[in-house]
């Protein structure tokens, strides 16, 4: 089609909606578009108008990219509005005298600020808040004002009040005729919370006030109210609502509503089939939509239909979420539904300025709507729950109380139906976002904006988009299963359950049942750890599948010698035992050092000497310290109340009790504990996998701490509990960890990855939410009861002792490669 033959679409108005319409139509192609805009600049982002006072320029707010109108498809006349429509000839006349023929005319004239008919409204210092020009005038006048006021406590009014605060006007008042702020969006209780927060921020609020007149000699000086009160004011911004710009339609004989608005059908068509109205000037099903998102939807409907599509506008969700002067305010669905039509759940925290209300259907199944003040984090999830009629969880209060279980939001996002509209500004569905992740590998919000435009409008859906990206990626990751290694296509947790269920006790059997190949250095120790967690049999019986150190029940060191660490529970040791350690170290020429876990490490032992060394240590009352195992290491203690003047309880005795309970228990990784006798925390228990700290009333139990390269403080699991409860919780915590963690994962990392985190763990351990508490206590007791010193088992068994040689064909010969040097009167391994 030649350009001249293309149908001409004239757009009256170049606001956000008119501009969106041009974008849509231009993209569809096949039209000549002529735009008349009243303002001197092309369309700009009116939603973020108040940012003009935060340093954003008019250019920053501009919507079209420079040069967008410089082609033959679209012509823009700025500073020139349509004056008259000749519906018979199908031409429009502009104020500047342009006569333009049209095939289709789209009225996108928007709205103007509603200015009530009050005496004195024409005085100097009275403004409206609508355009960049209005803002410029307000800005120019502000320096001479000390008492600024905004008439109207609705959404726009509060935005205007923020603008006045930003301009540094010393006292800013808001005058509202209704008994609450934002009467269209929030309820009285919500308003009370919002009022308290806004007052704290320096706003002065006047509710139930009707302005009788604006007083002053030429310039505004005060407001006179109907209740005979008066407020000195030297600047007034009127923000009392909007009035559709329908005068052009009126003049052309098109039908308008009694309170304004061009009457259109669901295709946004007026009685004249060639004329449409979209945005705030349109009256659809008796409604004026004063928000940008429904306006965009209208633009989309008309553009689509002009290009041959078939779309209707069937109403729009008026839910809103915004930050008003730093306070989150959100209203969604039916915020005012009240009993007996529904049941209402309300949460109020006056201290933090948070108010949340949700209205649920009488059968408790569906969410109808609600109000959020002070914390609107759950807004998008709640909105989607309303819009998609998602069935509510059994405890719907979790939706606004959050936290308890923690996984609520994550699960909620992914449970949305595919067609759920996530970004209403750009009409992007959940499916489109998920597709962008799976098919185009989009993995960030920024990339998503470029790819689907989701989140590029008001930006309110950004958190939801983020969660969807994460959720989709995670769901995709499930295809790459968490498996042990190439030999076992199961996770450690799955194998743990299988081993337990089928009572498998040898690696051979596990490999035959669930594996392939010969195993490797990854699966062998992992399965050995599972056997230890299930059956607690002497590990040397299956020495070949044990990890390097477990195989020889000692820690291999530089050069191939081993170190020996006897258990010293709680770090308490008698002088006699110290003497034995010294004697043994001297006899076998071992380097001695105090460890971080309050015991003594003896380095430099030949593999062949290990049984003899242990024989002497065991004879003196020592036992294995399991320093070589992924097992309980030490429970560090401070000296506690037996000696310390600050000590509240006997931390050493409790540490010994705990260490002796869990000694030898193998886990996915090593476990360290600590017990402190008071809040000074000298045992550094909070850096351990579990830490116990004495309180006036008992003990506080912390879990999931870690030293090492990525230090992390342990988190509080239970407060002021007695010893028995503490042990019970520890049993549960440790068994939960032992059963479910991946190989070589410390409790801190395990907890970080645990869905629902600490609150979930607390629920499982303290509230027994999985109903596993009793079983885990029994399992743990079985491990405790089957404890034995591994080294005693070796020392007393000549066959096992034979494994501790370097040359099997020359058992008494030591590795000649093993050499030492002298340092500070002791030996050290030769440098490699």
């Amino acid at each position, binding site marked *: 089609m030649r350009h001249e033959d293309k149908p001409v679409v004239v757009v009256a108005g170049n606001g956000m909606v008119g501009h969106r319409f041009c974008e849509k139509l231009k993209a569809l192609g096949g039209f000549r578009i002529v735009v008349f805009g009243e303002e001197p600049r092309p369309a700009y982002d009116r939603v973020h108008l108040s940012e003009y006072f935060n340093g954003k320029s008019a250019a920053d707010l501009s919507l079209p990219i420079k040069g967008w109108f410089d082609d033959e498809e679209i012509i823009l006349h700025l500073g020139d509005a349509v004056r008259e429509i000749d519906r018979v000839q199908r031409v429009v006349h502009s104020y500047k005298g342009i006569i333009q023929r049209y095939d289709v005319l789209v009225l996108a004239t928007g709205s103007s600020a509603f200015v009530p008919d009050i005496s004195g409204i024409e005085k100097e210092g009275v403004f409206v808040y609508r355009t960049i020009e209005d803002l410029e005038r307000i800005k120019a006048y502000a320096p001479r004002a000390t008492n600024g006021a905004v008439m109207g406590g609705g959404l726009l009014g509060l935005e205007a009040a923020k603008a006045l605060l930003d301009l540094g006007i010393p006292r800013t008042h808001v005058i509202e005729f209704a008994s609450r702020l934002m009467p269209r969006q929030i309820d009285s209780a919500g308003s009370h919370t919002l009022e308290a927060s806004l007052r704290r921020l320096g706003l002065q609020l006047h509710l139930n006030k009707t302005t009788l007149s604006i007083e002053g000699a030429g310039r505004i000086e005060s407001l006179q109210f109907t209740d005979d009160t008066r407020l000195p004011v030297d600047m007034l911004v009127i923000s009392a609502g909007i009035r559709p710009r329908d005068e052009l339609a009126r003049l052309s004989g098109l039908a308008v509503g009694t309170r304004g608005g061009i009457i259109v059908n669901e295709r946004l068509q007026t009685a004249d089939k060639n004329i449409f109205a979209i945005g705030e000037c349109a009256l659809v099903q008796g409604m004026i939509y004063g928000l940008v998102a429904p306006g965009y939807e209208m633009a989309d409907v008309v553009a689509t239909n002009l290009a041959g599509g078939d779309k209707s506008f069937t109403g729009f969700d008026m839910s809103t979420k915004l930050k008003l002067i730093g306070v989150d305010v959100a209203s969604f669905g039916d915020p005012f539904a009240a009993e007996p039509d529904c049941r209402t759940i309300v949460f109020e925290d006056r201290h933090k300025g948070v108010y949340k209300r949700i209205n649920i259907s009488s059968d408790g199944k569906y969410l109808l709507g609600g109000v959020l003040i002070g914390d609107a984090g759950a807004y998008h999830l709640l909105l989607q729950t309303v819009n998609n009629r998602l069935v509510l969880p059994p405890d719907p209060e979790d939706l606004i109380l959050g936290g308890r279980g923690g996984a609520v939001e994550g699960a909620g996002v992914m449970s949305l139906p595919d067609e759920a509209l996530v970004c209403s500004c750009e009409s992007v569905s959940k499916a489109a976002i998920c597709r962008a992740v799976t098919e185009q590998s989009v993995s960030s919000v920024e990339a998503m904006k470029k790819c689907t435009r989701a989140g590029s409008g008001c930006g309110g859906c950004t958190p939801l988009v983020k969660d969807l990206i994460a959720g989709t990626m995670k769901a995709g990751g499930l295809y790459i299963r968490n498996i042990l290694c*190439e*030999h076992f296509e199961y996770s450690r947790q799955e194998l743990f359950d299988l081993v337990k269920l089928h009572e498998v006790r040898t*690696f*051979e059997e596990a490999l035959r049942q669930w594996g392939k*190949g*010969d*195993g*490797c*250095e990854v699966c*062998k*120790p992992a399965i050995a750890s599972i056997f230890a967690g299930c059956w607690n049999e002497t590990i040397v019986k299956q*020495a*070949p*599948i044990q*990890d*390097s150190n477990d*195989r*020889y029940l000692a820690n*291999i060191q530089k*050069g*191939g010698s081993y170190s020996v660490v006897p258990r010293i529970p709680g770090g308490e040791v008698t002088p006699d035992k110290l003497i034995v350690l010294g004697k043994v170290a001297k006899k076998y020429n071992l380097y001695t050092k105090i460890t971080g876990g309050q015991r003594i490490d003896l380095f430099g032992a030949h593999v062949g000497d290990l049984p003899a060394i242990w024989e002497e240590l065991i004879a003196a009352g020592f036992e294995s310290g399991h320093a070589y195992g992924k097992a309980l290491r030490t429970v560090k203690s401070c000296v506690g109340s037996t000696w310390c003047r600050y000590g509240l309880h006997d931390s050493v005795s409790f540490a010994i009790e705990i260490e002796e309970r869990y000694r030898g228990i193998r886990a996915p990784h090593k476990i360290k504990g600590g017990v402190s006798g008071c809040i000074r925390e000298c045992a550094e228990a909070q850096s351990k996998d579990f830490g116990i700290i004495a309180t006036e009333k008992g003990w506080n139990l912390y879990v999931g701490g870690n030293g090492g390269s990525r230090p992390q403080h342990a988190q509080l699991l239970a407060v002021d509990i007695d010893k028995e409860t503490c042990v019970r919780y520890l049993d549960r915590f440790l068994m939960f960890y032992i059963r479910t963690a991946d190989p070589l994962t410390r409790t801190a990392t395990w907890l970080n990855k645990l869905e629902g985190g600490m609150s979930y763990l607390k629920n499982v351990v303290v509230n027994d939410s999985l109903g596993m508490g009793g079983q885990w206590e029994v399992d743990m007791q079985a491990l405790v009861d089957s404890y034995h010193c591994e080294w005693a088992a070796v020392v007393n068994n000549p066959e096992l002792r034979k*494994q501790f040689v*370097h*040359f*099997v*064909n*020359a058992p008494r*010969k030591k*590795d000649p*490669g*093993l050499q030492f040097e002298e340092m500070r009167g002791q030996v050290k391994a030769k440098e*490699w």
Partner: protein
Amino acid sequence: MDQNIKWLAACREEDIPADSGACVLLDGEQIAIFRFARRAEWYATQNRCPHKQQMSLARGMTGSAGEACEPKIACPFHKKTFSLQTGACLSGDDYQIRTYPVKVKGGRVYVGFAQ
């Protein structure tokens, strides 16, 4: 070909733990012998791990890699792995270890050295 190999008696069969390894001293050299009991296969390599020059491979962990189940050994120090068939390092380094033929006769294990 067999003529070019000198076979030395290393140890008894039961001296090498099943699906594991042990070290023998042969002609002043440390040799690691590995016994894959499930497959009834034997392998021998130098005991020295070329990574940090430690006499350690015999104390490592045996296993297999890939669909072909290539037999391998992981050093206990830093888990460098080596093919027991070719001696090539399988964990991405440029190391190579020596391998030796092994035969078992009458309950005794023999390691072959090239003449």
